[in-house]
């Protein structure tokens, strides 16, 4: 057996055995290179059915950069294809004050991660997590009076209002103990 064949065989054995040592010299890369992409909305042993709180949400309140980034992504990922510019269409309106799955950023984030019935896809494994948070911030900003006022001019504003922390004061419904939407364990790459 030639040495090259042996190296390839080693690589295949490595794969079959579930070996994760991607850089041990056999030249086989098994790790995904996506950064910060949640691999799955489903985590064995954890209840993800209801959002509680997530410390990462804090940094996206009062954050003008996050909502501006979210607005850019909202267009680039074609969220407008179903939600229009917040007025809805195939998907529900986002600029009104009805929140089927909650209006706190961690709840919106969870909706983006998991998807929802009747058409909302799960973006887990497709969109980097930091972008999902920025999108959640922009979605929450859409119904703020300041954002709507800025959009009623001749041309829509490119600077949506940041989400004030005060809008998240309503604790809302309390989920069961042990509930989390912290997907850190299944997130690949840097957070």
């Amino acid at each position, binding site marked *: 057996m030639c040495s090259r064949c042996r190296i390839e065989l080693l690589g295949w054995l490595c794969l079959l055995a579930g070996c994760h040592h991607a850089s041990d010299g056999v030249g086989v890369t098994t790790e995904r290179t996506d950064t910060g992409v949640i691999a799955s909305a489903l985590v064995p042993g954890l209840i993800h059915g209801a959002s509680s709180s997530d410390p990462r949400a804090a940094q996206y309140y009062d954050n003008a950069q996050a909502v501006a980034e979210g607005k850019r992504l909202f267009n680039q990922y074609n969220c407008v294809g179903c939600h*229009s*510019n917040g*007025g*809805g*269409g195939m998907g529900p*309106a986002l600029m009104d004050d009805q929140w089927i799955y909650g209006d706190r950023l961690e709840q919106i984030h969870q909706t983006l991660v998991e998807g929802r019935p009747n058409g909302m896809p799960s973006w887990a494994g497709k969109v980097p997590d930091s972008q999902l948070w920025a999108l959640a911030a922009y979605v929450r900003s859409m119904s703020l009076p300041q954002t709507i006022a800025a959009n009623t001019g001749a041309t829509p504003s490119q600077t949506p209002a940041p989400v004030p922390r005060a809008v998240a004061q309503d604790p809302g419904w309390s989920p069961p103990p042990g509930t989390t939407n912290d997907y850190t364990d299944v997130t690949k790459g840097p957070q």
Partner: protein
Amino acid sequence: MKPGPGGHRGELTAWDPVNRRPVWVVKENFPVWSGTVATGGGLVFYGSMDGWFKAVDAGTGKELWKYKVDSGVIGQPVSYRGPDGHQYLAVLSGVGGWSGAVVSGPVDPRDGSAALGFVNVMSDLPKYTTAGGTLYVFSLPH
């Protein structure tokens, strides 16, 4: 999305397919989203999105009869012979679809681009009709 030339948003057109030209045109304020049904007696029935079910003369387009139903019509009227041997016309009222989404869809009218832009062009429809869902059956004179 905006109304076309003339400001009205719909037309019912009878075509002469041999000479390839319209024979008559009925202008409608809103898009004619219903189908039409033509009867052997020389009538054409259709419905409008502001909730009128109409009969026009098949030869001239002249309006002969109309009836206000409880919601805009986007359905297909049908004509049939009933078990009693008489001719009937059935039509569903109940506005909807992209053009009726501003009335019956989950859209916010403040965003003109909502419902693929139909919210902008149909923004006055809520003044004319509400959402509904009623089957109407009419009998023709006999």
